């Protein structure tokens, strides 16, 4: 019973944050970017909580449980990506987007290049956002439904309704403020749980040496970073395949848009530090949860390795505390999906409606429209999710790759290479998008390597080649680029 009460309380806190944030959202800028008024802690942790999704508390511990420490390569990939984003993109994107008065990524890219290529850039951006975020959001709703239904013994459909309505409600009410503040709470909850659980686990197993012995009983390679693999399997499938997650970071609008929301650009260095410490604690903690789980429960101890965190929490904690740990799992999913719903809403209202249909739309109308569209996207995602419970992480990987290739190279180049032209940017995005879709759907290619890797490289190449072929950008564009550096 106390399990339900903790979870209920957690949901209530989320909705209350939505209500408080409602009072702060007076314009579209507030709704989609918190009016660029957030502090370093909120931006840092919100960026990470939006990034991590259900993989952190379900997938990663499950993979460590099943295969041992060799999954560390995925964690290293994610940490490299995090570090790259903060040091290479964050500061420039914050300054440049403010200079151009852009509040979304498609908006930034179109204003950055302008001219005749602006239209194609906006259309490709919208296509990438709509296709891949729809997949991503549906996958997250499925994950939420699965987790909540398994934990609380309710049906999958009831679980989807409960979790989705809470997410939709606070996002609709409070927009970016609500999403960022709930992310802060959810991010802290997640990291506390994955740090405390392994500590209690090691103590209960009798220290580090005994823990290592217990884990090794599950298999001789459980504590080997090569996972007992050699040659192509080791270097390409395990190491490069997992490090490739890093390539995806610059292209995730729901993550990078957070850098644009910080109040003072100088605070980004502090946010970078907080974010990297968070991601290290969270990823290595989550892996330790899986390892300690296999040490305590044995390799055959779970029918579904992804439930390792729930089982350990229920073993170690009293009911109410286990309820909080399980809330952290829901938090991992919710903090990602709320940010994604908001990106899709901002694409519909700012990038489509305000730019292409009604440029003079007043703020009140845009705000009302945003809330309606958030509700519509949420309901649509519930319908898409209704009939299937499978395929969560497969969808996530496809969507991650699509966003990575569609936006990653073009964002890096638009912020770092002044010679990039509008047509170069449009070509790069189109090539990235098409490569992901084709590579993913041709089995022979898909088996070779994750589509993200070739798509990212081809897109980068297309930007450079087409930019050189289409002449230098105009003086006004170069001058704007220079001003963004100041």
């Amino acid at each position: 019973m106390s399990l339900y009460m903790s979870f209920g309380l957690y949901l209530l806190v989320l909705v209350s944050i939505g209500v408080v944030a409602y009072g702060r959202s007076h314009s579209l800028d507030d709704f989609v970017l918190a009016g660029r008024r957030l502090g370093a802690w909120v931006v840092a942790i919100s960026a990470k909580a939006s990034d991590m999704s259900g993989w952190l508390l379900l997938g990663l511990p499950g993979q460590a449980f099943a295969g041992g420490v060799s999954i560390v390569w995925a964690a290293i990939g994610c940490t490299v990506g995090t570090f790259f984003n903060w040091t290479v993109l964050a500061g420039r994107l914050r300054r440049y987007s403010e200079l151009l008065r852009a509040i979304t990524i498609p908006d930034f890219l179109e204003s950055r290049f302008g001219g005749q290529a602006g239209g194609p850039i906006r259309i490709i951006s919208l296509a990438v956002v709509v296709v891949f975020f729809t997949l991503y959001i549906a996958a997250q709703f499925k994950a939420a439904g699965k987790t909540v239904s398994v934990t609380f013994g309710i049906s999958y459909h009831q679980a989807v309704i409960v979790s989705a309505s809470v997410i939709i409600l606070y996002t609709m009410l409070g927009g970016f403020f609500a999403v960022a503040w709930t992310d802060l709470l959810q991010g802290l909850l997640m990291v506390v749980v994955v740090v405390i659980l392994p500590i209690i686990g090691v103590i209960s197993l009798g220290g580090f040496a005994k823990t290592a012995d217990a884990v090794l009983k599950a298999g001789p390679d459980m504590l080997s970073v090569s996972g007992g693999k050699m040659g192509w399997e080791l270097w390409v499938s395990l190491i490069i395949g997992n490090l490739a997650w890093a390539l995806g970071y610059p292209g995730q609008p729901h993550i990078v848009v957070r850098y644009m929301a910080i109040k003072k650009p100088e605070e980004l260095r502090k946010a970078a530090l907080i974010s990297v410490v968070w991601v290290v604690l969270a990823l290595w903690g989550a892996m330790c949860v899986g390892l300690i789980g296999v040490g305590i429960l044995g390799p055959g101890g779970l029918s579904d390795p992804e439930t390792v965190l729930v089982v350990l929490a229920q073993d170690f904690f009293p009911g109410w505390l286990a309820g909080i740990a399980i809330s952290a799992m829901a938090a991992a999913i919710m903090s990602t999906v709320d940010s994604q719903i908001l990106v899709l809403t901002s694409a519909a209202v700012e990038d489509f409606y305000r730019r292409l249909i009604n440029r003079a739309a007043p703020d009140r109308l845009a705000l009302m429209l945003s809330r309606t569209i958030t509700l519509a996207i949420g309901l649509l995602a519930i319908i898409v999710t209704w009939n299937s419970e499978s395929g969560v992480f497969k969808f996530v990987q496809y969507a991650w790759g699509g966003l990575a290739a569609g936006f990653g190279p073009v964002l890096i180049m638009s912020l770092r290479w002044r010679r990039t032209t509008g047509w170069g940017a449009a070509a790069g995005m189109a090539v990235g998008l098409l490569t992901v879709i084709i590579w993913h759907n041709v089995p022979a290619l898909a088996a070779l390597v994750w589509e993200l890797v070739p798509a990212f490289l081809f897109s980068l190449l297309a930007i450079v080649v087409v930019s050189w072929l289409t002449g230098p950008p105009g003086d006004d564009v170069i001058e704007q680029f220079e001003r963004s550096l100041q």
Partner: protein
Amino acid sequence: MTLASLFWFIVPPLFFVAAAVAYYMMTGPKNDRRS
């Protein structure tokens, strides 16, 4: 062998935190030409 390999499990997090601290120190107001 496997315990030696575990060393590589522990080094990356320490490395990344050290890198983040170094970045924080290096981009401080004293070193930032923009401020």
